[in-house]
């Protein structure tokens, strides 16, 4: 199997995997970075959202071979100790129910607020529309994004 050099959370990793392996499974099974979740495998639910060069991407749709040379950030690397304003807002609002989708929600929200620190309600709703929460904690997610935006702007 070919090897790939990846930069994840500012750390260099060399992994051996099939070319077409989605980055999601390299993160989870090869590197034990399991905060990035598997939900659908086809880019529909957002549970596997990561940052690639600062942009929110679905790691289930990105092959490991495409990830070389990119700066990858996962939920584990979003902050050193869980104190990113979005993580703080999630804690303050106590957003999670089952919690499974939340790292994807947080990664989507943090990339979005990076580009738009002062969003309108509609912009928040549009930005978060791609992330499914089966427990339907949507009201709390929306509120937490607003709280984080207030801190950032």
């Amino acid at each position, binding site marked *: *199997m070919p090897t790939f050099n990846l930069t994840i959370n500012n750390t260099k990793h060399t992994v051996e*995997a*099939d070319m077409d*392996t*989605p980055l999601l*499974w390299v993160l*989870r*099974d*090869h590197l*034990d*970075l*399991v*905060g*990035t*979740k*598997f*939900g*659908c*495998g*086809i880019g*529909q*639910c957002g*549970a596997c959202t990561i940052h690639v060069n600062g942009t929110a991407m679905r790691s289930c749709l990105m092959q490991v071979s495409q990830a070389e040379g990119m700066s990858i950030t*996962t*939920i*584990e690397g*979003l902050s050193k*100790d*869980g104190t990113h304003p979005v*993580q703080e807002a*999630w*804690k303050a609002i*106590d957003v*999670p*129910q*089952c*919690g*499974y*989708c*939340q*790292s994807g929600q*947080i990664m989507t929200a943090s990339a979005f607020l990076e580009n738009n620190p002062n969003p309108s309600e509609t912009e928040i*709703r*549009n930005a*978060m*529309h*791609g*992330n*499914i*929460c*089966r*427990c*339907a*904690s*949507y*009201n*709390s*997610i*929306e509120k937490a994004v607003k709280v984080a935006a207030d801190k950032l702007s």
Partner: protein
Amino acid sequence: MATSKQQTFSRRSFLRTSALASGGMLIGFNLFNACKPEAKMPVDISQLNFNDFNAFIRISEEGKVSIFSPNPEIGQGVKTSMPMLIAEELDVLWDDVYVVQAPLDTEKYKNQMAGGSQSIRQNWMPLRQTGATAKQMLINAAAARWGVDASECTAKLGVITNAKGETLGYGDVVVEAASLEVPEDVKLKDPKDFTIIGQHTANVDIDKIVTGKPLFGMDYKVEGMVYAAVLRPPAFGQVLESFDATAAKALPGVIDVITIGEKARAYIERGKLSWTAPLSKSDKVVVIAKSTWDAFKGKKAIKAIWKNELPLESTEDHDKLLMDLLDGNTFNTRRSDGDVKKAFAEADKVLERTYEAPFLPHNCMEPMNFFASVTPEKIHLAGPVQTPEEAAKVVSDMLGRDLDDIHVDMTRMGGGFGRRLYGDFVFEVAEIANAIQKPVKMVSSREDDMTTGVYRPATKYRIAASVKDGKVTGYYLKEAAINSNMYGLVPNFFPAGAIENYQVDTANYKSAITTGAWRAPYTNFLASAEQSFFDELAETLGVDRIQLHIDLLQNVKGNTDKRIQYSPERLEGVIKLVVDKSNWGKAESGVYQGFSVYYCHNTHVAEVADVVMENGFPIVKKVTCAIDCGVVVNPLGALNQAKGGVIDGIGHAMYSSLSFKNGEPQSNNFNTYQLIRMGQTPIVDVHFVDSDIAPTGLGEPTLPPVGAAVANAIYAATGKRLTKQPYMSHLQTEKIVG
């Protein structure tokens, strides 16, 4: 404070204590059974034995409290709210309380399941009594040291005070307390003195969740573990005939390809299939691989031939079969009051409507998965399942192993909604691990998860009411469902007892498609049907919707029929609260309101949906929800549950549906199956009735009524009555101008 009889118990037989070798006091307790006479309390924290006790409390010499609980957490917050009950009566600062997921590799759990919104209701008294008993033992120890009577001492926030004003911390007396006799009669707090119960308390796993720490079954991993993907029959009614694994075996990540099914089949043939064990008789092809992706890839490369063992069913056939059942007379009568036939014969007017709902998969965000390791010495199972005890029993029987050889570890669950009551995935992985004798994790893809589910059965209701002299004189409800019918208590929900002539009949069609519990079983659609019907009935009668309910509830007050499940006073209470909070009848121009009220899972709920028209389509903007669930233990968690239930209910009523063609599910992932997303969600405004009655469930009861609240609001906005879910497919056919 209302208590229920079955919840009182003798503390002495349910609770044991020991002094820990490392210092501190350990309390082990059982919630539903007395401790076995031979149950031994450990003196080392690494030796906690959950075979003998449900949970342990450690009070350290620093006065810190740790609660070790293997309780299943499926997102409903019991891992937070149940320790709150102990801490309240023990009287300590919540900040000094640590909730510890029981360490893995302990003895097997003796645990109740999480399902049916029952956890908090059943544990309310036992957990409080456990905390109060521990507090009394600490007081007794302090009193003995001071040489005073325990009745002269009080304890608050971890500090014991005597009549002279001298104080001792809990930690100062734990060693003595551990050796004292367990007191029999302890006093519980007056609810008005609660300092923890009723406070907003954050989920205890919150820090781990927002930083992506391993918590879920999907995250579980041990050294040397391999991964398994299972190829199951693509259609219900099919079994494996033959397969070719040549291409799969040639893939570099694939270790082996095996078949399973023999053990499960033998188990079924022994006639031991229970309600928690939906199992297929078919052989299944299993790809064993180095990673999840390798296993998924291997599975795609298998060429399998399936044969039809049973007729292959389609939604079109089901629709006709269920309608035939409603038209026929093969019903079981589940409750019958007065004479419905006579009431209808003498009626001035009869209103009859039929309501229809599709199959629904659970679609937990975390697809089904489980870990197993089978060795000659022991069987280790780990993962997300709501029924760990039952799973261990089935595995023991299937593999012919002693129950004592089996250890089940619980992980956090990425959603349950009923799906994880069924341990089919545990039985599969046990059979795989038994065959390969290696630690292995079975992982379902989303497609596997959605197409080999245990579905909410497709169901149809026909409801008729007779009206005479402007009054409702008769009510006749018929249910036709796939595989099974509403459970025993449901025919005694509202409006049972409120209408003189009342009858509920049920019939079902036995299908090869596996069905089971789905968040708020049966009531999840029954409430939509009945409360849509009542909206139309009020219109037919020319009376206000609210007044119709209030009038009917007066008929139930003082009714001595013990079968009636709901309280008319509490239903009236939530109706009045929702009317007040929703601005019912006074909404601004362009806002159309729909009302619904329902009792289920011991909780009373009323809801009002506000709908506006945007570009010719009805949009649900807001739902006001009034709840009477007794004492609200953790308002923060309760709000999350209530709002989630409402939005989940709207999502499934409006958008979701699973149809079948020749036995095959017609959706298999979120590109062809619609779940509600943020842009479609209303703001949910939740209000709780102030109460000191023992708490009841919240995981389910806000979901059932909301479908009708939305349908009734859409009727108000558009003049179109919605009777078939998902409602959206009936709104999309024509653009409605509001």
